[in-house]
């Protein structure tokens, strides 16, 4: 805890009473750092007597794009109690006055992040039998929980919060089936212990492991087939109560996938890979949420027809250089590259127009790059500000199955909020507070400034 605080001192957050924390706060007060000390409580502590908190004189932006000027928001115990222009502020509410200039948005949700998870090792051991390397070495760990793997002090958690993220679905990094996705409150160093939903489904990809089976996408596809056959058979055999049925944690974790209770969160980017995943869906009968989907626009009609939602990556290449030239061949080449770039930055636009449900996933994109790329979505990607907010909040929440409890600024939802100086994400707007499950954090602007917003210090 203390160590974690040390690393996030710029953000000056406290969520518990602790002598060290007080000392820390005092130190910063003395040095003149503006501080907002909050007496937030973890959501697991549910006491009636907990004081409320509120924003007053703010513009509230709802996920559907509508807004309420001169409004107030009251929350208690991590849940929104009231939102609107005519809200009575409870006597016990600690109020932050928006001064008629601040804007409040639903907290951003990352549909699939790798934040705080261990990197895949650069070098892997050579297995004794590459043909049968065992589940783990093969990258087949759909039962693996992410919680024990998370690095509590990972800088990304602070960076994510500073960039407006309040919830993140996180899964381990790896190959074919690296593990389960769990949803965490983004609370800086407390993120790893702030579990919101555990094991909502396995992360999946067509990536082969190194130096063992399955090593190529084609073998990975065969391995999915075999896993599903094995899971279904084991489930049948277990149901008979046979004494020798046996147990297999990997296969058992796939039962809800086989029965379509849980989707596979399948990472695929290019058109051919997405087509491969779709062919597996047809053959094996499971549901998917497509993750990343950088070229999903090429199959937008098909994805809409199948009602497959996409947690899309906004990791986009820089705009190609189109320096003028009198070389005709090069001009033609530039034109095609420019068109390819435009198609990619308009990925979400195309998907939305086709009727695909689109949420957001960072999937490895650095938090600081997210804001920059959101600007590109608006300048070149054909999205409105409201659509970007919806993408980042209610749509992602709904795809993750938490749409009724998170993703909007409404009574009864999680008190997950982003507060900005101007309408977001227009240029020049800056995040000043995030509220994560009721815990309010002031975001200090980084000395460097810039549209990427405040940044935490890297450990």
């Amino acid at each position, binding site marked *: 805890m203390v160590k974690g605080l040390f690393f996030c001192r710029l953000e000056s957050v406290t969520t518990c009473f602790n002598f060290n924390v007080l000392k820390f706060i005092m130190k910063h007060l003395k040095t003149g750092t503006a501080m907002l000390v909050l007496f937030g409580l973890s959501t697991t502590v549910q006491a009636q007597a907990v004081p409320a908190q509120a924003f007053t004189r703010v513009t509230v932006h709802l996920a559907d794009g509508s807004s309420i000027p001169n409004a107030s928001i009251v929350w208690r115990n991590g849940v929104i109690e009231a939102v609107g222009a005519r809200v009575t502020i409870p006597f016990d509410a600690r109020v932050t006055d928006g001064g008629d200039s601040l804007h409040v948005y639903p907290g951003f949700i990352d549909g699939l992040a*790798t934040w705080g998870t261990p990197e*895949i*090792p*650069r*070098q*892997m051991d050579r297995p004794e039998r*590459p043909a*049968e*390397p065992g589940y783990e070495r093969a990258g087949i760990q759909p039962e693996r929980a992410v919680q024990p793997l998370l690095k509590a002090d990972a800088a990304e958690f602070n960076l994510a919060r500073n960039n407006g993220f309040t919830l993140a679905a996180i899964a381990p*990094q790896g*190959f074919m089936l690296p593990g389960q996705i769990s949803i965490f409150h983004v609370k800086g160093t407390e993120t790893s212990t702030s579990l919101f939903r555990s094991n909502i489904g396995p992360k999946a*990809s*067509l*990536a082969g492991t*190194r*130096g063992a089976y399955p*090593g*190529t*996408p*084609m*073998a990975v*596809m*065969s391995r999915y087939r*075999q896993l599903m*056959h*094995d899971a279904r*058979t*084991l489930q*049948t*055999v277990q149901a008979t109560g*046979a004494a020798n049925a046996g147990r297999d944690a990997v296969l058992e974790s796939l039962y809800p996938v086989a029965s379509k209770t849980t989707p596979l969160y399948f990472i*695929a*980017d*290019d*058109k*051919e*890979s997405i*087509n*491969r995943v*779709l*062919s597996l*869906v*047809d*053959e094996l009968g499971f549901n998917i949420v497509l993750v*990343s989907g950088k070229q999903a626009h090429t199959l937008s009609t*098909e994805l809409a027809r199948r009602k497959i939602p996409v947690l899309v990556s906004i990791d986009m*290449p820089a705009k*190609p250089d189109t320096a003028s030239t009198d070389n005709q*061949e*090069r001009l*033609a*080449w*530039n034109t*095609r*590259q420019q*068109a*390819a770039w435009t*198609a990619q930055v308009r990925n979400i636009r195309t998907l939305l127009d086709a009727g695909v449900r689109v949420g957001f996933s960072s*999937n*490895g994109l650095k938090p600081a790059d997210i804001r920059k790329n959101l600007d590109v979505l608006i300048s070149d990607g054909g999205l409105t500000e409201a659509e970007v907010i919806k993408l980042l909040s209610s749509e992602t929440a709904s795809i993750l199955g938490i749409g009724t409890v998170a993703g909007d600024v409404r009574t009864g939802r999680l008190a997950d909020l982003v507060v900005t100086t101007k309408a977001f994400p227009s240029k020049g707007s800056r995040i000043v507070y995030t509220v994560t499950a009721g815990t309010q954090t002031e975001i200090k602007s980084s000395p460097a400034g810039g549209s990427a917003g405040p940044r935490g210090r890297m450990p």
Partner: protein
Amino acid sequence: MMVGTAVAQPKGSVLVKNATVITIANGTLDNTDVLVQNGLITRIGQNLNAPRGVETIDGTGKYLLPGIIDAHSHLALTSINEASSPVTAEVRMRDVVDPNDIGLYRALAGGVTISHAMHGSANVIGGQGATLKHHYGEEASGLLMRDAPRTIKFALGENPTRVHGQGNGVHPRTRMGVEQVIREHFDAAKDYKHRRAATPTRVAKNERLEVMADILDGKILVHCHSYRSDEILMLMRVFNEYGIKNYTFQHANEAFKVAPELAKNGAHTSIFADWWAYKFEVYYSTSYNAAILNHYGVVNSINSDSDELIRHLNHEAAKTVKYGGVSELDALKMITINPAIQLGIDKRVGSIEVGKEADFALWSKHPLSIYAIAERTWVDGVTRFNLATDATDMRLNVSPVGTFEASIMSESGRHTDACMNDVLDFFTLETMDHNHE
């Protein structure tokens, strides 16, 4: 099966007038017209008229040759070798077809309309092949030839013994071991079939052994990478024992040494015109291989196994005339009807006959001449290459990143096995950017 995303294979209509038609099946016909309707050849004759809306092409002074078929290719695949296991029968090349491969267009520009996209030769029993129609411009599923028989790659000799025996210290390290790996898996497939038939709910479907059993049941054509005569004899012995028929030896540089045995067993061969000496097992080979096999009545084809060689298989076929005096017709058969036989599609393609699919190319000169240029290539009656409208940049999929100057200098020539691609990758234990595909 790509059920959800399957697209209909386009079919076209065309009338080619007044060409020298090399039918392959019924001689070479001067000043002849060929009418194609909805992807099929409907009439061959003289003074044919184009039905309303059907384009007429003047073939005067030109040669119409059936689309060239390459029985050994690794074109349009995103991965080639699953080198982690000596047996990977469950792997399907049709899962990893890359329809954007510019190589498909370059092959069409050489009059090649069908290629057999194969697994590599790292494994004794590799993956299942995909017979591709070169519908460049369609999705992956649009390239898969409908209802083409299933095929599978086997590999004998240096490659599997090097990768698995020397590389990983597992069977096989010798040609002795190769035989036993094959036998073990056929026997395992038989046992599996019995077990599964007895208790279908308790024995899970096994992707690998199902394929092995299908081979035993004659449902899959085996295409076996091989070089030396002893290993060719070995496989014929094993196949006779297990009752497997209709198979093709790929490369088969020493097939000429056992041509009578191949003929007796009805085994086919698919070879290079003149490649040799790039490894020890091809040191004692001869460019007269095709002539000897042809002399003994073995159904032989000339293949490329190379994105470069596939561009000029007509030229490769002409070498069989040069080396050993194969007749011009037989030379052309080796790139048309013979590979069609080997892929089990000879009733549909490989010759210009009424009722067959309209895969052919119009050549400026006799296609065995080095001066011949394919001017237009049709697949199922649809023009997929047209010299008259050929643009410089024929890429389908343009990347938003990269520079204009970027180029890849590929070594030409067979200094290494093209079909050992991915094996290098396999031996590199460094992880790449896997999370982002």
